[in-house]
């Protein structure tokens, strides 16, 4: 996929994946059958996550770490490159082992270094009660205008904008912690916040009644 989007120069910390509101040209409508390796990569990610050997947010963090090459890869190529990092980062396999496996000519399996034991970091101990929700449906809130480095799930385009709590979704482990293999507990309240599209985009040219709903974790919100 070609990278036509240009990032505003002021937003030096805006991650390469956070593209809401940029211009990447026409939507490519052609659909392709998934490659076998992509299906297996996807299946493997489900298995590893179910065994609590990795989290979806680790996958996202590694995808986002691809930097400038992000837009040169297709979706499942990015995912596979992320999982290659995760299994090493988690100590499930070593980089050296992977190197031998991929060597050209191939190195016989018998010469692999002694296989390490699989580790189970047993992440989340979901005992801590979730934090009580500060906001209620209908409350006016503003999204923090901040640029923290690291894995966050709050897109740039809504930062600094005011909206209304549409509903409380419940409490969920903080993805900003999950991405770094910490449990993200106690669970943090998650809200759907509704914005007027014309307030998000100064040049919004469509219906002035159009809205945008997005999930925001409580620590990104202040009363407005």
């Amino acid at each position, binding site marked *: 996929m070609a990278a036509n989007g240009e990032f505003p120069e002021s937003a030096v910390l805006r991650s390469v994946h956070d593209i809401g509101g940029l211009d990447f040209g026409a939507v*490519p409508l052609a659909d392709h059958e998934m490659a076998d390796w992509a299906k297996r990569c996807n299946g493997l990610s489900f298995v590893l996550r179910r065994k609590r050997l990795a989290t979806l947010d680790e996958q996202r963090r590694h995808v986002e770490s691809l930097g400038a090459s992000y837009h040169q890869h297709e979706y499942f190529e990015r995912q596979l490159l992320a999982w290659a990092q995760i299994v090493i980062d988690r100590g499930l396999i070593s980089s050296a082992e992977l190197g031998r496996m991929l060597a050209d000519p191939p190195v016989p399996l018998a010469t692999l270094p002694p296989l390490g034991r699989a580790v189970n970091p047993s992440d989340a101990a979901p005992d801590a009660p979730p934090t009580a929700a500060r906001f209620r449906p209908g409350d006016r809130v503003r999204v923090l205008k901040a640029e923290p480095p690291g894995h966050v799930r709050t897109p740039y385009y809504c930062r600094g904008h005011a909206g209304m709590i549409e509903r409380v979704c419940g409490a969920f482990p903080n993805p900003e912690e999950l991405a770094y293999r910490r449990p993200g507990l106690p669970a943090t309240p998650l809200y759907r916040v509704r914005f007027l599209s014309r307030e998000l985009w100064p040049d919004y040219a469509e219906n002035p009644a159009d809205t945008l709903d997005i999930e925001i974790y409580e620590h990104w919100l202040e009363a407005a």
Partner: protein
Amino acid sequence: MSDSSSAGEYRRLQAAIEELLILKGVVAREEIDAEVAAMDARDHTRGARMVARAWVDPAYKARMLANGRAAAEEIGIAVGPLHLIVVENTPEVHNVIVCTLCSCYPRALLGMPPDWYKSAAYRARAVREPRQVLAEFGTTIPDGVAIRVHDSTADMRYMVLPLRPAGTEGLPEVELARLVNRDCLVGTRLPDRPGPGVG
């Protein structure tokens, strides 16, 4: 596909990771096979069944809007721990789903997202000029109808409940479900119109 191509490189990398994890006893090949088969078996027709039921049964629709997962399970569709929010199109509001940060999609219900859903163009533009984007799908939303974009970037997943097409009165539920195409569950298209032979 030749092994010197980049597709071959991805294939080799995937196979190497899988092989090593199996050798170490971290995963079993059958576990991956089972996930692949389960995903292959999911597609938009599962969501279409829910939509068709909601079109004919107002009480079911109310339950679906209150709790998407429970409504799926009620008609025998297993979705695991999916947090599903169903958003209803009305004559006043048309809903569109996007994930600007990656490509969050209700895979446990609908299977894998279409390629366009994962494209940078869709992800970047759907939040800013939804009508322009929908026009590229051949979909026109009247000016008097508000568009509500849902940026699906956290723990919820979304499906659109489209408006029931005109001229489908009296159609049985199973035929209504056939009108529910994949893209109308994301909001980029409308349901199909019944063919001349139908109804």
